[in-house]
């Protein structure tokens, strides 16, 4: 058990190192820098030269990489080339609004998925089961940006009851105001995530129900409810929690496309705009940050697996 964990941990570290090398090389493979990427910028060639010098962007690649890496180990992730402010500060400012949206979406989707998923698993192949399965398949298939556009058209224009974009009405920003702004992006995210989770919960529960001990319990004459709560759910919980752990990264990086469509002032949109603008320090940090989150989530999921399935030890 212990050695398996240590091995997984070392693997995670190696993967993260690989991630840093890959991002760095990829980012610097193509020529160009943020001052070029933005068509609006007013440029003065000598000033640009000096600008690159001051940021050491004229140095050889390996030097830049080592300098960057050594700063990262000291906890310094550099300054955004666009905003000229520390990357961590910029990311930190955007994290709360992302968390608000993603956590709410996650909680709501998971809650609904567990409730509905258990219900339809116990009534396998009923009309309800088929309906939910088909709807959830459709839910996975809808492009979330398209759904967002349709919702905006309906609820912000045809029936203007909700704001089209943003998180707050400037100057207001009360809880009610934020709730109103949150509704449409939340709907888009819940639609997609619920569809994914509910199918997963359903099959996790069904898997357990086909196990021998459940059959044995049934043979012993236990009531269906008792079987469900005593035997099925505790055993189906682990895979579901694992999936929750694997959703962790998404909670912290935000739903990029959904945030972009609704101009939600979170990390996801920041990631998209910085990437498009070639803001290297931000892209490096964001990639490292995201990859670390995923690696950590995988690590947690593995630990959970080791806990529930002793055969893997």
């Amino acid at each position, binding site marked *: 058990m212990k050695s398996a964990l240590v091995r997984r941990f070392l693997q995670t570290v190696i993967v993260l190192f690989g991630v840093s090398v890959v991002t760095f090389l990829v980012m610097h493979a193509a020529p160009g820098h943020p001052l070029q990427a933005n068509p*609006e910028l007013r440029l003065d060639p000598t000033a640009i030269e000096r600008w690159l010098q001051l940021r050491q962007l004229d140095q050889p690649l390996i030097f830049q990489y080592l300098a960057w890496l050594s700063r990262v180990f000291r906890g310094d992730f550099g300054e955004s080339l666009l905003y000229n402010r520390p990357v961590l500060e910029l990311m930190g400012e955007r994290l709360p609004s992302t968390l*608000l949206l993603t956590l709410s979406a996650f909680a709501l989707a998971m809650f609904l998925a567990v409730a509905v998923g258990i219900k339809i698993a116990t009534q396998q192949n009923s009309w309800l089961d088929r309906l939910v399965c088909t709807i959830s398949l459709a839910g996975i298939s809808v492009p979330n940006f398209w759904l967002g556009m349709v919702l905006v058209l309906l609820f912000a224009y045809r029936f203007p009851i909700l704001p089209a974009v943003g998180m*707050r009405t400037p100057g207001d920003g009360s809880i009610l105001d934020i709730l109103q702004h949150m509704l449409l992006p939340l709907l888009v995210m819940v639609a997609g995530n619920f569809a994914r989770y509910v199918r997963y919960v359903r099959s996790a529960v069904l898997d357990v129900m086909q196990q021998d001990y459940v059959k044995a319990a049934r043979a012993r004459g236990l009531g269906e409810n008792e079987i469900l709560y005593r035997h099925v759910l505790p055993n189906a919980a682990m895979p579901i929690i694992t999936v929750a752990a694997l959703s962790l990264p998404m909670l912290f990086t935000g739903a990029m496309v959904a945030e972009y469509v609704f101009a939600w*002032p979170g990390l996801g949109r920041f990631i998209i705009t910085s990437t498009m603008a070639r803001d290297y320090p931000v892209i490096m940090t964001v990639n490292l940050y995201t990859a670390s989150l995923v690696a950590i989530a995988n690590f947690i999921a593995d630990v959970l697996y080791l806990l529930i399935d002793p055969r893997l030890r």
Partner: protein
Amino acid sequence: MRRILATVIIVLFMMCTGCQNNKSTTGPSLHVAALTGPLTMNPLFLRDTASAEVAALLHPQLLVTDPETLLPKARLFSSWQLLEDNLTYIFSLHDDAYWSDGKPITAEDVAFTLRVICHPDYTGGLFLPLRYITGAEGYKQEHSSPFADGAISGISIIDEKTLKINLKETYAPFLTMLNFAPLPAHILSQVEVAKMESHEYSHKLPVSAGPYLLAEWNDEYVHVRANPNYFLGKPSIENIYYRYIPNLEAQLIELLAGKLDLIPTAVKVEDIKNLKNNPEIKIYHNPRLVYDYLALNGRKVNSPLADKKVRKAFSLLLNRQEIVKNLLLNYGTPLYGPLLPLHFAYNKALQTDKVDLAAARRLLVEAGYNKLELNLIYNVGNAVRENVALLLKEQAAKIGIEIKITLLEWEAFLAALNEGDYDLAILGRGVEVDPDLTFHWHSQSRGNSLAYANSEVDQLLDQGVATMDRSKRTEIYQAAESIIVEDAPAVWLYAREAIHAATAKLQNFTPHPESIFYNVHEWTLAAEGEEF
């Protein structure tokens, strides 16, 4: 688990709302839309439109130009005087101009700002016109301290509110170039110039002097509040929110829902009819200092476009009046040369539309071509240029020129332009307030992206900036323009106007071609229910 989640979500709500509590809005508010957010609040490092627009709210320009005539006008410099030698300017600062911390704005602040711009470590874009100041280039090359200290010989402080600037040679456009705002020397003189862009001043802006003061800057909007001590009087609109909404359609939806009051950037022509019928919304057109043109590149080896006759043939293909009428719905002016109608040197006589396919065909045959194949590039995302490209293709086919169209993403487009790897390109160009054509058409200029070279034009342009008399300059530039047009390095298409949509409640809104907030301190909002 669920309880923990719920708690976390509530706490996050508090975080998102909490920062608002002590900033509750009082007084009238105006919500202005923008496509992107600003990157900096530092007036010397403005590289993008949004930062420049917000800077116009927060900082007073030294001088401005009149929105109609584009001639220099007093602002923070309340008056100026040019001595007989045409080289020495005496500037007086506005008597009532104070920083928001109560300190007066002094000649030393301006001198300090000029030194920052001329410092070797300065990486913004304001230096080029200042190189005419005596000693500025020496300072740029030789100043060795990391701070903007020492002195530039051409800049001297006469008293607290008076500054003298000496130019090394006569430079007529100089005053129109003083369109930037000063930095507070008492806050920033101890900061290294190399670190000034990332200094906390650039994003917290503790001290400024414009019509508005920064209240909050986040990832959704910039909130500014009227400056009670603004030297031209406190603005009547207490709050302005500059909201970034990257989608134009969402901006319009919010405008129609009454959640936005002003959309400054290019309302789509398709929208205008609807908006014009809406009594709650008023449409403004604002001529801009930008034009679209077709570049004819004769620099490629064996390019048929090296022949002037072929280039001239292209200028006979497009009916610019029709383009303006059909594609711009008349929100623009057809263009036949590089000077815009706004410029004092603009030549109305050039305004003749000449579409003559037979003549174009004759020119082509005279040049020795029966058939031609050329490629045309332009960048993604501009419907009007897209249509012009298709129109040009159609017209050119009629005289035996086959055009292959390639759409490029911005960077690829830029690269192709820089390397001269194209035959034809449709693109836009921004020009200066002054009619001086040097930047784009002087053979020695870095901005001459078409590599146009004509020694006669060079001479005229040099003469143009060394002449102060306006009517003489008009003659010089019109002469230069007609030579350039005759050489046909490009086909000028149209100058497109910006279309702003604002709530009808907004009064005294006089946009400047370069800044919507030109007279923001004079704007007012009619009260609800009032006749307007």
